[in-house]
């Protein structure tokens, strides 16, 4: 059985056990979140051994060459020394503004204290001083002076409750390498784009939409925002304003039932509202973000309506496994 050395201690890895599971089994405090190789919260650095290629999937070249890897995705073949990525791979950022967008969603604006490059629509791991980590999508654009996150308050959620109740302007947090491939790349500027999401799935979409429009996308851009009730919809004013500014941008809000409060929202589920308007989506490009169940069912429906499997970019928000 291979051994891993962490913080001067040796731990025997059981068959098929990952580095993360081995450390957790031995009560080692280590940051982690999704356990699925997505959030990159469990980034660690290897030395004195071989890091399996699989454990480095999705990491930037610069991190790979330095033997960084994801502890949750690494089943070591031989002995390996493992060190926490620590703050050398994290960018400090100060909270600059906190604003309620509706009953449950808080807009958190941060100013990075060092250059922080990303694509609009990617997500970051946000670390508190004590190592508590959660992933959030970026709603801002890379050339804006502040980073923007939309944080839904989850009852009992350690990070979200703290951000909603305790965090203040000036509080310092740490950001780790942006990840995810749900973003806009200029290519066919006339291609129709469809963006759909519920809840804070709107955050990455809000970034992607504005990025595409500013990069000169000329084809129609349709954003569908869904919520269970009208009060679940947010940023409606900003999006309506965006619709007035850009003639090729169209914004549709939907709630499942047409109650008295529906207002300007359409009645119906998100997929109904989309497919009613566009029964055929051949030649479109799609972005789907938010709740995993919604994302998986919607991408299948978009595909069956003719959208190419490679033309659908999806970001399913995994919840914390803790």
């Amino acid at each position, binding site marked *: 059985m291979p051994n891993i050395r962490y913080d001067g201690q040796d731990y025997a890895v059981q068959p098929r056990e990952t580095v993360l599971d081995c450390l957790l089994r031995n009560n080692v405090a280590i940051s982690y979140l999704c356990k699925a190789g997505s959030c990159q919260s469990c980034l660690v650095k290897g030395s004195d051994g071989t890091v399996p290629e699989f454990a480095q999937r999705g990491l930037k070249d610069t991190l790979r060459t330095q033997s960084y890897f994801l502890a949750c995705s690494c089943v070591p073949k031989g002995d390996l020394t493992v060190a926490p990525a620590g703050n050398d791979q994290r960018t400090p950022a100060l909270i600059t503004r906190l604003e309620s967008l509706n009953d449950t969603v808080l807009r958190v604006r941060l100013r990075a204290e060092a250059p922080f490059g990303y694509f609009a629509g990617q997500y970051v791991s946000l670390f508190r001083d004590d190592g508590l980590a959660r992933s959030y999508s970026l709603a801002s654009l890379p050339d804006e002076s502040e980073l923007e996150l939309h944080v839904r308050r989850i009852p009992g959620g350690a990070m979200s409750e703290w951000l909603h109740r305790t965090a203040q302007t000036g509080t310092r947090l740490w950001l780790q390498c942006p990840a995810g491939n749900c973003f806009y790349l200029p290519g066919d500027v006339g291609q129709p784009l469809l963006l759909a999401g519920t809840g804070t799935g709107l955050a990455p979409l809000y970034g992607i939409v504005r990025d595409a429009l500013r990069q000169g996308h000329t084809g129609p851009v349709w954003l569908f925002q869904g919520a269970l009730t009208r009060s679940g919809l947010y940023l409606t004013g900003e999006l309506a304003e965006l619709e007035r500014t850009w003639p090729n941008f169209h914004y549709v809000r939907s709630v499942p039932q047409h109650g008295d409060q529906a207002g300007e929202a359409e009645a119906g589920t998100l997929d109904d509202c989309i497919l009613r308007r566009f029964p055929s989506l051949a030649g479109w490009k799609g972005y789907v973000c938010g709740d995993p169940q919604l994302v998986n069912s919607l991408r299948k429906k978009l*595909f069956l309506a003719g959208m190419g499997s490679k033309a*659908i970019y*999806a970001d399913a928000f995994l919840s914390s496994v803790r």
Partner: protein
Amino acid sequence: METVLTPHEATLYEQLGGEAAVDAAVDIFYRKVLSDSRISSFFDGVDMDRQAAKQKAFLTMAFGGPHSYTGLDMRRGHQHLVARGLNDSHFDAVVELLGATLAELGVAPDLIAKVAAIAESTRNDVLNR
């Protein structure tokens, strides 16, 4: 009729158009599979990206292209589906949809028959018997 193969004669995979043909076929084929009520339930809840990659690997093999499938892979990969009732009728449906996909792309009937024969050769492994 006997066909004399010369060293330069195109393989089935080349005749079909290689990887570009697989790319053209994969979405059409997978869409048919997901829409067909005889078999679509076997694909409920699967990750679409991963499934599309598997469909591409399967089509590459059926097109006579480079692949690393073994009979054992086929068995292991479908074991849980056989436990859920996967049988000959479902296998027949997949072969039928494969043929319909190729016909839609304008592939000649004799080449479709060759692809179907390759797919057919995996039947016993897929059905774990």
